């Protein structure tokens, strides 16, 4: 029964996506047509690429943080690749460690101060992490540091809760959903705008939270993904494996 449902769901996802992308009018630039100009033949080539980022990022992306504009918009495809590198590394680590039976050794009983402080600090850690990745287009930081901060909260939890690991299944679901939403935000660009990862949302008022189009959405997805992924890695390296 479950198998049948899985097959039906996957076939349906395939058909819907295939239909979307075959019927969408994604333009393709061939050598003869298209708007690709050899940079050497073009006046803009005199302006170097870094200069162009500094001059045009506000107009192009509406992001106050130029680094974020470069990471998520101009070179967004590379960032998708970097997220995948982390995902691949975590998966490889899980192949090595995750399928062994592990015994959690209770080495030292965490002291009272740590236990109480963790309960107090943990919500603040999560809030700071979320703040950093939600404001990635306004202030320094972004999805990767924000996710890492949330993962440090997980580490604290592991130190206190010596008997249990982290909720591995929930982390895995979060990771999958976050990764899929990043890829989907990119693929929607093909349907709603012209290109993969192209911005299709209004850029809003410069310098406010609801601005810069798809950048905050992507950074939120990255934040969730990095946080749950690093949490999964911490879960995997906890304990001593027994043969």
């Amino acid at each position, binding site marked *: 029964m*479950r*198998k049948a*449902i*899985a*097959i039906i*769901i996957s076939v349906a*996802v*395939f058909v819907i*996506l*295939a239909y979307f*992308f*075959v019927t969408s009018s994604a333009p*393709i*630039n*061939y*050598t003869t047509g298209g708007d*690709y100009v*050899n*940079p*050497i033949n073009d006046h803009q*080539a005199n302006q*170097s*690429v870094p200069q162009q*980022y500094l001059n045009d990022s506000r107009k*192009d992306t509406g992001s106050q943080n130029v680094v974020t504009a470069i990471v998520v*918009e*101009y*070179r*967004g*495809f*590379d960032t*998708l*690749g*970097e997220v995948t*590198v982390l*995902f*691949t590394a975590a*998966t*490889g680590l899980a*192949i*090595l460690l*995750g*399928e062994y039976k592990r015994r959690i050794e209770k080495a030292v009983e965490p002291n009272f101060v740590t236990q109480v402080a963790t309960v107090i600090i943990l919500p603040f850690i999560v809030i700071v992490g979320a703040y950093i990745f939600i404001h990635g287009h306004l202030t320094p930081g972004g999805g990767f540091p924000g996710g890492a901060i949330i993962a440090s909260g997980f580490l604290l939890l592991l130190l206190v809760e010596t008997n249990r690991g982290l909720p591995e*299944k929930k982390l895995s*679901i979060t*990771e*999958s*959903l976050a*990764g*899929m939403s990043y*890829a*989907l935000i*990119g*693929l929607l*660009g*093909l349907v709603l705008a012209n*290109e*993969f*990862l*192209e911005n299709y949302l209004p850029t809003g008022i410069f310098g406010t939270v609801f601005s810069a189009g798809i950048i905050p959405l992507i950074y939120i997805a990255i934040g969730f993904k990095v946080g749950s992924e690093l949490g999964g890695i911490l879960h995997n390296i906890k304990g001593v494996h027994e043969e």
Partner: protein
Amino acid sequence: MVSLPPVLLIAFPLFFAFLAPLINMVSKKAVKYYTMAVLLLNTAISLIIFLNVLEHGVIYEELSGFYPPVGILLSVGYLGAILALLINALAPIVYLSYFGDAENSVKFSMIYMLVTASSTGIVITGDLFNMFVFFEITAVGSYGLVASMRTKKAYEGAFKYIVLGTIGSSFILLGIATIYGYLKTLNFYDIAARINTMPESARLMSFIFLIIGIGVEAELFPLNGWVPDAYEGASNRVAAFFSLGPSKAGIYAIARLLFTLVPLVKGFNLAMLLGLLTLVIGELAALRQKDPKRMLAYSSIGQMGLILVAFSMHSALAFTAAIFLMVSHALAKSLLFLGTRGYKEGVLRNPWVAGPIFIGVLSIIGMPPFPGFWGKWYLLVNMAQRGFWAVILLIIFAAIVEGVYYARFLHRGTEGEESKVLTRSEIAAITILALILVLVGMFPQYLYTPAVKAAAALMGGGP
């Protein structure tokens, strides 16, 4: 005809690899069918893109909607289209051989999809840093695939691969930094147009950094210490997958470096030297091996050297030869790696195993009418025309060595009682690969036409 944006070749497997853990939670058995469906979808997309390229020429795609040197450019030329089709068409065939196994974890399937996508990404990208990112995904995924056997040998191979691969990646990054520091650009064609404004010493330095870094992945001579151990430690299917995916992507990157990015006379001379060393040392080392997997691994190294020699001839005919050699190597080596799981006496008594393995061996040592023959033939004709007699002698010497150890390998398999090792799905996979080898060998014109166009494009410094 429908035209599809090439980015789907990368975006779809990424999306479906992220989805795979959820499928696994619903049903564990469905994962392998799901992975197969994803790989077949990619095959269809790459076929459509290949036909589009044949019809209209190069496809450019400006990702994120920004103008090329500012944004990332994907450029699928003839060579990229041929290799993308090769990688994506063979990945499901090699994956087919897993179907008989009960043990097939979802994590393995995820990494398999990701490495297929990233190897494809290397051959279709038009941006240097983007290529580096895909190299990272390929390398990190490959460490996991090697270690997934969980034996001591697998850990040894994976550890050597991690050390060399990480050092290699750092060198690629240094090379990219050198180029970016001078030219302030990462786009291939922008770099190619302005590379001559860099001082000679800086050009040479970035060339050396990049060839050291990429050479690790492309299995070139002083940098390939990981190859025999990793191939021996990995399962046969993973070794088969390596010979069609990551190693092809690596050798493509070497061609891109030699012809487009930093075209230097010294670079071609160095490539010729490295190629000959890789060829001769690889073949001689293979002669001494007793374990069939190690022998095939060293033979792979030798083949990579031959392909590099063909690149460094810097002529359209030799480049066409290199494309035939790449196709032959991808098909025949993955066939041989799949077919030699648990190789022992009497395996070749079974005609369904012996037939495909014979075809694979014949193509590797260059017998007509298989693609390996066409590759070596075009290469030797080109060398004879230009009077490279010493190199011809070396290549013939290497071919004789190759013939000797493959004859020994076949002889060992045909002795004794018949023994059955391979599962039915593995035999199906090697039969399909052998059929493709025969078809490509009998009708070389269908590969020759796009290969000549690819060679002409590369010679002209284009995609």
